[in-house]
């Protein structure tokens, strides 16, 4: 049996209006070999992180603690062949404990916390490891019309070298995990996006979540030899 290679047909997230409006309906096209290299961006190192930017539990070093449960999130970033993704930039954003973002376009009217911005940055070290602290986010009502909540999650954008990934870390045992449209599309693979609880020795945070990130696809390994 021979199989003809085809590009993916993207799926529309169930009960998700924006997914319906924006998901390409045609099968993705295959990239001809002669054009392949031009599809591998190489993102320059961006030295933008500042002191304290990996601690989202405070607006600035020494400032008061935000409300809610302070948690640690840590892990290792690597490619599918296990090579560490070094000095990559992680941009992190999450809602406060009540489920509100400080983003100017979040019009939910949910309570803000004057001690929480929910924005952070960290770069991976020589082994591809990262650690940041934040407040455990609240689930929020994403679709008031049908009463659908987005489960607790932390947004992470990762960029560095030829690795590029925007993803979300979910929390184990959350009741809204099962009904989330994007989680539904992931199927059994959703488990890879769930942080695993660990005890942390740091007394300033309640507990930790281990979230190892594996950057997939051919782009991430294009320049590995």
């Amino acid at each position, binding site marked *: 049996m021979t199989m003809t*290679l*085809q*590009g*993916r047909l*993207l799926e529309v*997230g169930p009960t*998700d*209006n*924006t*997914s*319906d*409006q*924006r*998901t*390409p*309906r*045609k099968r*993705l*096209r*295959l*990239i*001809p070999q*002669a*054009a*392949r290299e*031009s*599809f591998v*961006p*190489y*993102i320059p190192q*961006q030295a933008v992180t500042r002191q304290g930017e990996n601690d989202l539990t405070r607006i600035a070093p020494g400032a008061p603690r935000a409300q809610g449960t302070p948690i640690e999130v840590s892990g290792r970033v690597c*490619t*599918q*062949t*296990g090579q560490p993704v070094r000095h990559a930039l992680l*941009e992190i954003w999450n809602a406060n404990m009540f489920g509100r*973002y400080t*983003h100017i*376009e*979040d019009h939910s009217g949910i309570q803000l916390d004057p001690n929480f*911005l929910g924005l952070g940055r960290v770069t991976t070290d020589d082994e591809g490891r990262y650690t940041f602290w934040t407040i455990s986010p609240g689930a929020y009502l994403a679709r008031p019309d049908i009463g659908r909540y987005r489960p607790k999650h932390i*947004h992470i*954008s990762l960029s560095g070298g*030829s690795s590029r*990934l*925007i*993803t*979300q870390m979910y929390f184990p045992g959350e009741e809204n995990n099962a009904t989330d449209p*994007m989680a539904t599309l*992931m199927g059994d693979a*959703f488990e*890879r*996006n769930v942080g695993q609880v660990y005890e942390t020795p740091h007394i300033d945070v309640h507990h930790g979540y281990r979230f190892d990130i*594996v*950057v*997939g*696809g*051919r*782009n991430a390994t294009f*320049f590995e030899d």
Partner: protein
Amino acid sequence: MSANDKQNMLFPTNEDTVGPYFPIYFRDERLEDLTSIHPGLIVAPEGKHIILRGRVLDRHGDLANGVVMEFWQANAKGVYRTPAHADNPDLDPWFNGYGRLRSKAGEYSFRTIFPGSSKGRAPNITLTIFSDGINRVVTQVFFEDAEGNDTDSLLSSLSEEDKPKLIARHDGRTADGAEVYLLDIIMAGDQETPFFDDLVS
């Protein structure tokens, strides 16, 4: 890569949607205009200044608001700044080729230099789009009347009907010394922009 290596590959973390609230706080203006390093510096990339401008539209023809766009291109001499070309004398010390912007409404304007042709390719800019409800999608933008469009391997892989959807139209205007090119991206529907699969191919 051998079949055996493939079996030992780790499972990738799932891509997930950027959601509606990509932080504008993370904006970096230096990534929205690649024609200059800093207004206070006399050094700058070589090449003709252009502005690539347009709208990102959804299935209904409405602006797909809340869009993060990333751009990747060769310098004026057609050289990409990648590890494979680290020793290339035609690298431009003032040009990385990576840009990013976040558009609130779906309209975008990216200032850069006209990319050179590389390895028989027509001048092009690789475009990555993130938006609420979808994961990353990628395509390439070409330029009206550019040399090499007729023989470009990627454009040639498309139907005659699809080719113009990736060719930015020369607006005939200049803005702040840059020639303006226009291209709308249509995420879904009859006039859908061709997108490419960089995970499978």
